[in-house]
C-alpha cells in the first residue's frame, strides 16, 4: 500500500469571515420589482383595478352608501376567508366551512327558541359546537393522514344533511322561527349585526370586525411562534415535526379557527335576518377558498398572508355589487370570479417558481 494520500489530520477550521463580508452572489432587485413579487401586492393592485373599473362603469357606486354596501358584502366573505386562508397556509382545506356557518346559526336559533332561554346561551352552545366540528375535522385529518379534501367533503355532506333534517324535525319547516323578540337578542345584535354612522353613511359592524380580525391574523402569522408553525406545517410537515414543531396541535387548532369564523358569520346571519334558512351555505366554502387563493395563499400550503385575502374578499364584494350597480345581469358574477381566480393562480405559480429558483 502506498501512502500517497495525506495521512495527517484533517484541516478543519473554516475561514472566519469578517462581520461585513458578503458572499456577493446575490444582487438586490429593485424595490418595485421585489414588491411586485409579493402576492399581496399583486392582489392589492388587482383590487384597485376592479375598483377603478366599476367606479367608471357604475356612477352610482361613487356614493358613500354604495361603498358601504360593497364593504359589508366583502366583510361577510372576508371574515371567513381569513381563517380559511390560515388553514390553507397550514396546508389544509375545509370544504365544510360554508354549511358549518348555517349549522352554527341553526343551533343558536333553535336551541334558544325551543328551550326559551336567553339567546346568549344559544350563541355559546353554537360556539362550542362550531369549535367541536373544527376539532373533529382536524383530528380526522391528522389521525388518518387522509387528504383534508376528503375528510371535510364528508363533513360537508353530513352537515348539509343534518342541517335540513334536524331543522325539519324540530320546527317542521325549512327555516327556523323568528327569535327577534327573545331575551338578549338586541344585545347580541349590537355585537354581531349592528350599524354605525360615519359621516352620514351607515356602516355595518362586520366591516370593523373584519379589519380587526385581519390585523390579529396578520400579527399572529408574522409575529408569533404559532404563526411560524403555521408556515412550517404547510411548507414541510416532516421537517417541522423533526425540529420539534407540534404539527398535530397546529393543524387541529387551525381547523378550530375556521370553526370560530363559521360561528361568527353564523351569528351575524342569525341576528341580521332573525331566522335561518337550513339549506343555505352550500357553495360558500368555495368562495372563501377562492378569496384566499386570489389573496395569494398557496393552495398547497406554506405561503400566503392574512392581508392578501382581505383584498381578495374585497374584490369579490366589489364585483358582486359592482355588477348590480352597473345594471348588468348578475349572472355574470360567477364568470368574473372564475377569471379572477385563474389570474390569481397563474400569478401565484409564477411567484413560487421565482422564489425557489436557484
Amino acid at each position: 500500500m502506498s501512502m500517497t494520500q495525506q495521512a495527517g489530520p484533517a484541516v478543519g477550521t473554516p475561514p472566519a469571515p469578517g462581520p461585513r463580508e458578503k458572499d456577493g452572489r446575490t444582487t438586490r432587485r429593485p424595490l418595485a420589482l421585489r414588491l411586485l413579487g409579493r402576492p399581496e401586492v399583486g392582489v392589492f393592485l388587482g383590487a384597485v383595478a376592479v375598483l377603478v373599473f366599476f367606479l367608471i362603469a357604475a356612477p352610482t357606486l361613487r356614493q358613500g352608501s354604495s361603498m358601504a354596501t360593497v364593504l359589508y358584502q366583502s366583510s361577510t366573505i372576508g371574515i371567513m376567508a381569513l381563517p380559511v386562508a390560515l388553514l390553507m397556509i397550514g396546508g389544509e382545506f375545509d370544504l365544510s366551512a360554508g354549511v358549518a356557518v348555517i349549522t352554527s346559526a341553526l343551533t343558536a336559533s333553535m336551541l334558544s327558541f325551543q328551550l326559551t332561554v336567553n339567546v346568549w346561551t344559544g350563541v355559546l352552545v353554537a360556539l362550542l359546537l362550531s369549535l367541536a366540528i373544527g376539532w373533529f375535522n382536524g383530528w380526522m385529518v391528522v389521525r388518518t393522514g387522509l387528504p383534508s379534501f376528503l375528510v371535510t367533503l364528508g363533513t360537508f355532506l353530513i352537515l348539509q344533511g343534518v342541517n335540513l333534517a334536524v331543522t325539519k324535525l324540530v320546527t317542521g319547516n325549512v327555516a327556523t322561527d323568528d327569535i327577534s323578540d327573545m331575551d338578549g337578542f338586541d344585545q347580541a345584535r349590537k355585537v354581531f349585526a349592528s350599524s354605525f354612522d360615519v359621516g352620514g353613511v351607515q356602516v355595518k359592524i362586520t366591516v370593523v370586525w373584519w379589519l380587526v380580525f385581519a390585523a390579529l391574523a396578520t400579527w399572529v402569522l408574522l409575529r408569533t411562534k404559532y404563526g411560524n408553525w403555521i408556515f412550517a406545517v404547510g411548507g414541510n410537515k416532516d421537517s417541522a415535526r423533526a425540529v420539534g414543531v407540534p404539527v398535530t396541535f397546529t393543524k387541529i387548532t387551525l381547523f378550530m379557527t375556521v370553526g370560530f369564523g363559521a360561528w361568527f358569520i353564523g351569528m351575524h346571519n342569525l341576528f341580521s335576518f332573525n331566522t335561518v334558512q337550513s339549506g343555505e351555505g352550500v357553495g360558500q366554502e368555495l368562495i372563501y377558498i377562492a378569496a384566499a387563493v386570489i389573496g395569494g395563499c398557496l393552495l398547497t400550503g406554506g405561503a400566503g398572508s392574512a392581508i392578501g385575502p382581505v383584498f381578495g374578499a374585497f374584490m369579490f364584494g366589489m364585483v358582486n355589487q359592482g355588477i348590480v350597480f352597473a345594471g348588468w345581469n348578475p349572472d355574470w358574477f360567477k364568470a368574473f370570479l372564475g377569471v379572477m381566480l385563474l389570474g390569481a393562480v397563474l400569478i401565484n405559480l409564477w411567484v413560487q417558481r421565482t422564489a425557489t429558483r436557484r
Partner: protein
Amino acid sequence: MTNDDTHGAILADDSVPGSADGALVELRGAGKSYGNIRALHGVDLTVHPGRVTCVLGDNGAGKSTLIKIVSGLHQHTEGEFLVDGEPVRFSTPREALDRGIATVYQDLATVPLMPVWRNFFLGSEMTKGPWPVRRLDIARMKRTADEELRNMGIVLDDLDQPIGTLSGGQRQSVAIARAVYFGARVLILDEPTAALGVKQSGVVLKYIAAARDRGLGVIFITHNPHHAYMVGDHFSVLRLGTLELSAARSDVSLEELTNHMAGGAELAALKHELAQVRGVDTEGLPEEADLTAPTATPSAPKATTAAPTATGSEGTA
C-alpha cells in the same frame, strides 16, 4: 474499541461528563431485528467529543438502522446503548434531542419557502413579552442566526431569503449550524454529501470539521471513503449488518478503507474461486490493487467504488 490516539482534533474533553473514557455515545454489541430479519448485529461504536466517527457501508449495510437507534427513531433489540456511560432506550427523537443528540437528515432539514432565519429557529423560537402579547423576538433571532452562521463560516447576504433558494450544501450547513447552536453534543449526519457536487461537499466537510473543533462528537454516515477520510478520526465499515472494520485513523489508510468499502477483500476471494473454475481467464481480471487504487481526486469516487461493489455483491449472492 477505544483508541486514545490523539491525532486529528485536539481533545479538550476532560471536563465533559461521561463514562470513564469520556465517550458521549457508546454502542456495545448493539443489534436490531425486524421480525425475523436481522438488520444489525453485534455493532460496537464509540463517539468521543471533538472526534468524528465515520460510519461507512454500502446500501443495505445497516447504516440507516444504526442512526435510527442512536437518534431515537427505533430501539435496539440486542446489546447496549449508552449515553454518557448510562444505558438508555429512546422512544422518540425528542428524547434523543434532550440528551443532546441531534440528527441532520439529508432531506428532512428545512422548510423551503421559509426565510433562513425562521428555519434556523423553527421549533425553538425566541420570544419576548408576557403571554397575550408574547411575540417573536425577530431582531434577536436574525442577529443570533447571522452570528451563528458566521461562526461556522457561512456567509449569507440576506437571511430573509427563502432557504429553498440556497444551494444544497448551504442548506445542509445551516442545518448543521442550527444543531450546533441548539446545544447538540452529538451530531449525526446522514449522508450529508450524497446529493452534493464536489464544491458543495467540500463546504459541508468544512462545517463537519468546524463542529468537531467546537467539541462535538460527530457521527458521519457516508458511503464515500474519500469524504470520510478527510475529516474522520475513527472509521467503522458495516457490511450486511455487522461490523467489518473498526479502526482509528492511524491504523488504516485511505487505500485500505476504500478497499473495505468497495468489497476488495471479497473480490480477491472471488478471483481466487474463479481461478479454480476451468475456462475463466483470470489473467484478464484486474488485480486487487487496481480495484482499490486511490483515485486521483476525491471528486469522482463514486465511479471507482460503485463498479467493484456491484461485482462484489454479485459474487456473494
